[in-house]
């Protein structure tokens, strides 16, 4: 849970950090990834092959949809912070109702690519869940290397600091924004493909990831990848433990209370820079 949440939250954090866009449609990009994973696995029924195809194709398709939404809608609003909130609410409804129309209201299960139970001396653990943790960790490492070591990551970080000065050095900010929005959505899609063998794909499944991703990025500090990872670990673990021993509702109450405390005592988040 924490690993997948970290992936989704880093996507949201990147979008806000670089573009200053609060992407309310982030949860629906997650949902779209899960729904498309079901479609791909149906089209390629061979167990590991279908899942691998979904893991590659779904982020690409969702990223392309996000880039299209950026170019067609957000760019025309000149990335105005308030207007883009309203616009992404609209995008979220379009995606949600599109999924309902083409995919139907039923929850659909996707089989895990392999079935393996790891037996430890005191307890057993799902091999697939361990795979999810490792895969999410590898994707996050790749994102970190991309942001800190690649030329494209450098361009994104420069644009994040000052988009006008970036333009004065030949950086096409519109293209950077489209790429960032696509990358953020693609990360949500990767998270969704990984989680869909554990939770079923459903057109309303985007609400929880959106809420939890917002909780994570607010606690971690908007735009801070390090803070997002640590907050994802804290919220993911607490959500899992409280849900298991008490109720999922209590887990959400605790997470929301944590956000309230952070907003009161440290509004910039645990690792965010003060505005």
């Amino acid at each position: 849970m924490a690993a997948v949440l970290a992936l989704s939250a880093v996507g949201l954090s990147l979008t806000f950090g670089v573009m200053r866009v609060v992407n309310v449609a982030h949860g629906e990009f997650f949902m779209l990834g899960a729904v498309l994973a079901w479609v791909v696995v149906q089209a390629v029924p061979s167990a590991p092959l279908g899942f691998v195809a979904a893991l590659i194709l779904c982020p690409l398709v969702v990223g392309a949809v996000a880039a299209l939404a950026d170019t067609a809608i957000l760019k025309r609003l000149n990335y105005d912070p308030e207007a883009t909130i309203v616009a992404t609410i609209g995008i979220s409804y379009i995606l949600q109702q599109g999924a309902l129309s083409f995919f139907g209201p039923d929850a659909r299960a996707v089989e895990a690519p392999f079935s393996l139970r790891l037996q430890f001396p005191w307890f057993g653990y799902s091999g697939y869940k361990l795979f999810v943790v490792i895969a999410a960790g590898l994707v996050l490492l790749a994102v970190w290397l991309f942001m800190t070591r690649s030329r494209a990551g450098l361009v994104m970080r420069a644009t994040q600091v000052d988009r006008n000065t970036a333009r004065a050095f030949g950086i096409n900010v519109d293209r950077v924004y489209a790429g960032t929005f696509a990358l953020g959505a693609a990360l949500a899609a990767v998270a969704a493909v990984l989680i869909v063998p554990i939770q079923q794909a459903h057109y309303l499944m985007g609400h929880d990831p959106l809420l939890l991703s917002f909780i994570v990025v607010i606690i971690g500090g908007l735009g801070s990848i390090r803070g997002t990872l640590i907050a994802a670990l804290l919220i993911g673990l607490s959500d899992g433990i409280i849900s298991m021993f008490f109720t999922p509702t209590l887990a959400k109450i605790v997470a929301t209370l944590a956000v309230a405390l952070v907003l009161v005592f440290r509004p910039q988040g645990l690792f965010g820079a003060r505005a």
Partner: protein
Amino acid sequence: MLVIEGLTAGYGGAPVLHGVGLGAAPGKVTCVMGRNGAGKTTLMRAIMGQLRASSGTIHLDGEALHGLPAHEVPRHGVALVPQGRRLFGPLTVAENIEIGLMTRRKGRAVREHVLDLFPRLRERLNQQSRTLSGGEQQMLALARALCLEPKVLLLDEPTEGLQPSMIRLIRDTVLKLKATGVAVVLVEQRVEAVLEVADSVAFMAQGRVTEVLPAHGLTPQSPQFATWVGV
């Protein structure tokens, strides 16, 4: 040669520049002077394409710059050292220089040349640029702009808040650039600094260029400075 004719531009629907005309020749330093709010920085931003001109033209060696997207203007050989430096603060010195080299193919040679001009930056390549001193930050802002190998360099108040030794370094750099044929447009408030390097001085007031005079005919006591700059 940079030629600006009848340029009108501003913020939103409110024009700040009204029919501005100005030229900057290769190997010459054109200084732009005026009181606060005269439109000097707006002119720099309009040349860089950051503000859309509602009328008028900007040409560089016959090529139209007006109407180009802002990220295309530096590719045509125009570089800006903005007021307040506008470094990418969380990025290191090396990364700021790397951003300057984005449009260059032979980046390594240009990088070495720029670091030879400002050896102090070479010692601080891995330091975050926001932790540099004011003078070092201005060196980096200049170095980053020179990475573009500009035909025209726009300097917006580069000596603001700097100590005398750093002001001398910037003056020497401007003179070196002038000698290599770069057209320099310098926005400056200090009369002495202007007269040391300028070939011509354009005075601005209320968004218009009111007078353009050769610098050799001006002294610190010339009435134009009192009239248009208030010094």
